[in-house]
């Protein structure tokens, strides 16, 4: 029978797969009420501290500052891994918590502590009762001179007198002036000194050096002040530590950052981890230690994340991807979108009938470009291809053997990408190729295929195929940029089964491709012309 355009086995297998995927999806959304679409949520982050500590059998400990909930940040969903050690939380009198991993360090221990934080964007009102005196324990702890905060040093006193003489009627103004001075007149340099006086003398210091100088100036001016440390959150793999000063006034601590420039409240992308000490992670009795903070921006509200994290169903809880470490989550979020890309490619090739260079080439190009605006990305790929094709023309004269020739082409592609990265820095387009290792091999093969097609079938044919490949890449590109799709596939990985089912359907489809209607149109017309 000619009407059947889908083989029976493909129809059945596809239907089973689609149904299983949709059934699980339906159960999770309709029965368990998991959210299908990400909510418009702001400033919700997941932070994971990842420590590697190496020891040779002796006892020791690793201590990390743990954040607390306050008016500007809400900390929840904390969890840690201990890797053969004992984990305890030590709470100091001030309320500051420290996570302590202790025990015998033998070999490499990987320790993590993860939490979610909802940062507040509401402005913190500045204190009104400015005459209020600090309580004795605060005055005692945060007004005194020390080696770190040399408030009695003549240059500190002199600077205070010159820049911001005491003004009892406007203490906030005096603070702002001090902050402005340290922010603007002292440069921030990662190689700068951590020492307050050296920073002042050099006019350049590290974030710590500048913060210490500011604390010293504040204390000298009579404000209880201390150092504070935390993270500046940007959705990169590694979170940036930042250090600032806190000053007590009118019954509350104000934040003053001479590096990021905030005053009063912390901005909505800074999380406070510890007050009083600038070091976030310390160790004793360990041979070597390294750590980093991984950051992930959440697309779900806190209670929605919780519903994925700890669903009422134990099976679901066991397989929830939200419980994975941040690093794995980042990778999986991209990985799980791939099947959608394969589906689009299958539609383009088998239902529409477009010829592209390489089956999944458009998918991989799109993946590489996902962090860039489309126009810029295509421009980059285009310029690499043009350069490669011209190089290939020159190489042709040398009559090299195939594999070395491809190797030379690959070198040219690598050089072109290197040059673009340098240009990118000059033009301040950051992370030009940083996100993914740019698919140099794919680009090399693309250039080779383009050149061979040009030789075999002529330039118009090669250009047409390249244009169609580009169009396919443009069709696939959005899937890596749509946050809702990423959430959908990550929250409901069972949908991969449904995608598989649809792919099976496409694979079993024996009807015409769209391009064939065009290709064979003359046949249909010829039949019409015939006399009946």
């Amino acid at each position: 029978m000619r009407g059947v355009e889908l083989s029976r086995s493909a129809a059945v297998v596809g239907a089973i797969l689609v149904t299983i995927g949709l059934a699980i999806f339906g159960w999770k959304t309709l029965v368990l009420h998991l959210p299908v679409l990400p909510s418009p949520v702001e400033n919700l982050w997941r932070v994971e501290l990842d420590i590697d500590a190496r020891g040779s059998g002796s006892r020791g400990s690793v201590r990390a500052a743990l954040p607390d909930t306050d008016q500007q940040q809400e900390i929840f969903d904390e969890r840690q891994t201990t890797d053969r050690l004992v984990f305890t939380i030590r709470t100091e009198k001030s309320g500051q918590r420290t996570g302590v991993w202790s025990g015998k360090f033998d070999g490499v221990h990987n320790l993590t502590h993860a939490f979610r934080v909802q940062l507040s964007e509401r402005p913190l009102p500045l204190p009104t009762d400015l005459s209020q005196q600090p309580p004795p324990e605060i005055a005692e702890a945060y007004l005194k001179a020390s080696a770190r905060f040399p408030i009695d040093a003549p240059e500190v006193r002199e600077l205070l007198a010159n820049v911001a003489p005491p003004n009892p009627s406007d203490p906030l103004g005096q603070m702002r002036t001090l902050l402005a001075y340290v922010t603007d007149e002292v440069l921030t340099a990662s190689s700068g000194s951590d020492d307050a006086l050296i920073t002042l003398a050099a006019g350049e210091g590290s974030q710590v050096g500048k913060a210490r100088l500011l604390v010293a100036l504040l204390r000298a001016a009579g404000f209880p002040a201390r150092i504070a440390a935390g993270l500046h959150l940007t959705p990169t793999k590694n979170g940036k530590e930042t250090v600032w000063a806190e000053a007590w006034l009118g019954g509350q601590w104000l934040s003053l950052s001479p590096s990021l420039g905030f005053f009063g409240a912390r901005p909505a992308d800074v999380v406070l981890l510890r007050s009083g000490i600038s070091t976030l992670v310390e160790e004793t009795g360990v041979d070597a230690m390294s750590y980093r903070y991984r950051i992930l921006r959440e697309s779900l509200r806190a209670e929605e994340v919780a519903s994925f994290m700890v669903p009422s169903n134990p099976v679901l809880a066991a397989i929830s991807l939200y419980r994975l470490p941040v690093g794995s989550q980042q990778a999986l979020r991209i990985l799980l979108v791939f099947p959608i890309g394969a589906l689009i490619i299958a539609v383009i090739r088998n239902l529409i009938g477009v010829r592209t260079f390489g089956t999944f080439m458009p998918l991989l190009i799109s993946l590489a470009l996902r962090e860039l605006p489309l126009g810029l990305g295509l421009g980059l790929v285009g310029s690499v291809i043009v350069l490669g094709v011209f190089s290939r023309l020159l190489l042709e004269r040398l009559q090299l053997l195939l594999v070395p020739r491809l190797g030379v082409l690959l070198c040219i592609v690598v050089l072109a990408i290197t040059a673009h990265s340098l240009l990118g820095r000059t033009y301040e387009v950051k992370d030009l190729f940083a996100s993914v290792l740019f698919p140099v091999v794919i680009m090399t093969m693309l250039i080779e295929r383009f050149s061979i097609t040009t030789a075999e079938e002529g330039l118009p044919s090669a250009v047409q195929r390249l244009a169609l490949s580009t169009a396919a890449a443009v069709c696939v590109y959005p899937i890596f940029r749509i946050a809702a799709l990423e959430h959908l596939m990550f929250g409901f990985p069972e949908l991969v089964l449904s995608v598989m089912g649809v792919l099976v359907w496409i694979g079993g489809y024996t009807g015409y491709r769209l391009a064939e209607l065009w290709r064979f149109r003359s046949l249909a017309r010829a039949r019409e012309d015939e006399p009946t």
Partner: protein
Amino acid sequence: MSLAGRLRALGVLGINRRNGVYTSRWNEREHYPSVDDKLETKRLLREAGIATAPVLAVARTHSEVRGMLAALDGAASFVIKPAHGAMGNGVMVLLQRDGDWFLRTGGVWLDRRALSYHSESIISGAYALGGQPDVAFAEERLVAHEGFADIATEGVPDVRVVVFRGVPVMAMTRLPTRGSRGRANLHQGAVGVGIELDSGTTNFAVQSGRSVDVHPDTQRAVRARRVPEFERVLEIAVRASDQTELGYVGADVVVDAARGPLVLELNARPGLAIQLANRAGLVPRLEEVDRRVRPDMPWADRLALGRDIAKRARGGALA
């Protein structure tokens, strides 16, 4: 009726259907090497006593290229091919020589070094289907039968016969043009001319998807011509397909001026443009073959069956 509906009513075969219903069922993967490797095809056919274009020399490794070219010293014109090439890629036709210089189709003179480089590219896999290491070989250059002389330029026309389960179902001749640079490939600009299986005369012609009546280079009529030795062409196409164990084959046959019909190569994934050249769909004929072919039918009976099916299809008895 929709365009798709009309094509379906005509029985036009699409790629998805060809792959999903015909080649996947009748061409088992394990038998592909017998047609994907042209030297292997020639060996198979030679054993069965079917004529193929004579091989002059073979180079399986880079070090054998020098020897292959040396073996060609006596040949005035020949063709260098990859054993695993597809769609005519990597085929270099050399028309005449002057010492160490060779005239390539298209009027370019090449030196020995260029031939050596091309052969080494072939061996490196530049033209192979999967890019795997390949074999280069030189073949005698065939000369078009005089029956084609006025409608073939720069190259040799061939006759493509689609053979399904040992029954010829459709045929066309592919005429090289200046635009196709001597190649007999439709997507490169060759003219495809449909052939009526029962009479051996040409019916319709297409070039680059457009209907034509004359050869674009010579302006001579290509329709209503008798294909020379067509009976014999069909016979060796059918017998060649019998050697492959493939059920759906495109056999490319050349009618050489001196040697008569001989098989150039076989194809396990024959293209669908043959339907445009014949202004007819393949599906009704394929389904009729499924109904009428019997196992152990002698080739002569299958040939007659194919002709009968084609005749009835043209009469509208199948659609």
